């Protein structure tokens, strides 16, 4: 944890906060535009937005302005305080996730020693917000959606954490920066030029992580809490205007954050082959490399979302307990054996 540019603590914190406040909405906008609007449209033989800005790139900003103008409606029977807090909790969970994501040797908001543990803990907070929204809306569809989200939590959180365990064992650290270092300084059968991105050894872990992340993000095929055609939006059915915007932003921003986590843990993070791990130039180049990798991972997440139908809740539970969890446990055992033997 070196001080950035040798500034005082408060100045450093202010800069980091400013960066975070700019980066997160930008990230959400970028993913939302690139994948949710444009790529989805092209995959479905549509054009998507074309009018606002070049190639419709400002469409989401126009949408945000529209949301801000909408009336803020509370259902008469709603638990007003919880109803209002819910979107904030959901968004806060994805904001907190961004705190530990490293994008360069020094370009990280907070280099926690328990980084990955923190990320897993914070990301599950969003379910609390979803449950709050579902309960407080006083709407049966919302309630069903909220309860589905809570039931889903048990199904995917365990494989998610177990998938991460393999990486942690291999990297010897919970610190995300150290995980990147382990990949940068690792070698494949004595060939160390591109380091050792953990996707090569932890491919099962990567697969399980991506599937569980899909469920964590409530993307199809695991979007039962939202389920437009069944629950007409599920937990956020009663939300309008700005509060709905918060849910939307949180959804896309969390997708970004999870792509970033996958990048850091499995794809070698921000490190560029051929550079020193601590080279200062990587503070500038790292974020760019990171972004490119994140977009690739996010592309896969959204690609699956646009292609697959939705599972039923009991089918997800069955899939998680009969396939994902045994597989991830086996992955940990194998990783452990290799770690001890080699």
């Amino acid at each position, binding site marked *: 944890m070196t001080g950035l540019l040798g500034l005082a603590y408060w100045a450093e914190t202010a800069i980091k906060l400013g960066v975070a406040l700019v980066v997160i909405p930008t990230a959400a906008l970028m993913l939302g535009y690139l994948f949710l609007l444009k790529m989805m449209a092209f995959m479905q*033989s*549509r054009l998507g937005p074309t009018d606002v800005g070049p190639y419709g790139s400002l469409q989401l900003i126009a949408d945000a302005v529209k949301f801000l103008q909408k009336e803020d409606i509370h259902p008469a029977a709603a638990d007003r305080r919880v109803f209002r807090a819910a979107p904030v909790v959901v968004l806060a969970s994805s904001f907190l996730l961004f705190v530990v994501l490293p994008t360069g040797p020094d370009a990280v908001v907070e280099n926690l020693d328990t980084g990955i543990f923190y990320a897993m803990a914070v990301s599950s907070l969003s379910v609390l917000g979803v449950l709050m929204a579902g309960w407080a809306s006083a709407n049966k569809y919302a309630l069903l959606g909220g309860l589905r989200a809570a039931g889903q939590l048990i199904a995917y959180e365990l494989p998610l954490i177990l998938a991460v365990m393999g990486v942690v064992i291999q990297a010897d650290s919970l610190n995300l920066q150290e995980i990147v270092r382990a990949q940068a300084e690792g070698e494949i059968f004595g060939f160390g030029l591109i380091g050792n991105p953990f996707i090569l050894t932890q491919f099962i872990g990567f697969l399980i992580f991506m599937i569980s992340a899909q469920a964590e993000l409530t993307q199809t*095929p695991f979007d039962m809490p939202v389920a437009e*055609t069944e629950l007409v939006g599920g937990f956020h059915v009663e939300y309008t205007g700005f509060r709905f915007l918060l849910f939307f932003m949180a959804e896309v921003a969390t997708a970004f954050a999870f792509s970033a986590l996958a990048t850091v843990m499995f794809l070698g993070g921000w490190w560029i082959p051929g550079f020193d791990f601590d080279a200062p130039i990587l503070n500038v180049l790292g974020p760019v490399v990171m972004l490119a990798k994140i977009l690739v991972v996010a592309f896969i997440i959204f690609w699956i979302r*646009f292609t697959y*139908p939705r599972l039923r809740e009991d*089918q997800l539970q069955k899939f998680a307990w009969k396939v994902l969890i045994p597989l991830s446990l086996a992955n940990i055992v194998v990783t452990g054996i290799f770690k001890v033997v080699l």
Partner: protein
Amino acid sequence: MSPPPTASSLRSQQAYVAAQAADARVNVELDTGDMTLNIGPQHPATHGTLRIACQLDGEQVISAEPLMGYMHRGYEKLCEVRTFPQCTTLINRIDWLGSFANEVPFILAAEQLMGVEAPPRAQWIRTILFELSRIANVSLFLGDMGVQVGALTPVFFAFRDRERVLNQIEAVTGGRFHPNFDRIGGLKDDLPRGWIDETHAVMAKMRGFCDEMEDLLMGNEIFQARCRSVGVIPGEVALDFGLSGANLRASGVDWDLRRDANPGLAWDQVDWRVWTHPDGDSFARYWVRLQETREATKIVDQLLDGIPAGPIMAKVPRIIKVPAGEAYVSTENPLGEMGYYVVSKGGLEPFRVKIRTPSFSNISVVPWVMRGTYVPDIITILGSLYFILGDIDR
């Protein structure tokens, strides 16, 4: 060849029933209050304004009752104050996705009363347009079923390719949705020049669309998991509830009015077959409709090559007065058996028109089939039964 009942489908069906029974036992032990959930009248899965009043225990359905009438437009009564040719305008709007097919049985009933028969060329073109409306109608179902189980993309492909069929219908009739083209004694106009070749090309495209749906949706494991052994309707039950069309054929009943009771159209002139599926579940209904869309493209292809020459209009008086009498004509419409019972007192207007719409009967099986299923299955079953709201409330 229709597939034999799959061992896995039978097994999973039994497992599903056993799981439901086990759930029911648990629910007796931990008694939780029931919840009434109104699905609709405003709900995306009801394609309009159908309301399904469900009693839920958790996510399990105790009872489901379809409540209709939110879009009742009184067409039967309105027909009584219109002349026979004017009625087709209303009748177009019953099943709005396959409009031309609605006109045919009514016109045939009127012709039967008048003792007029359309010339062969008109009958062939009628059959072609009938099958085109079937393709336009069912291809949308093939995509829309994806939306019902959560896949958004197929429906856009369906809209894209269906547009070609609508273009062909528009080229002949001048209307995409409501052609109003069928006349007592024949058709309004002949086919435009070059239409036959274009339609051949469109049929090839639609076969491609069917292949695409088979790859994208029907072969998908999640789709199969969601649809197989969900909403099983055995053949006897289907007959008891008066199901017709693909819903009946998916329950293994070999019944098709085009073959069994052809009212003079050109179906008996071409080589085609009736598809049935023994399983009776949501997947079987999808499968049968997919095969039927393919079959319809083949029917159209064959009919296009053999249109006889001749007039398209029989000799009918300018002002049509239908002699007193009654007639019932039904045809195999995209959704099932659509019949018109027409009573005339010899005037300009029909005395009474009773419309037997397929969706109305098809939806009556909902309370029977939905007991014990889960909330997501409601949507799958509703989607696979495939109703058009205008066809329920006419």
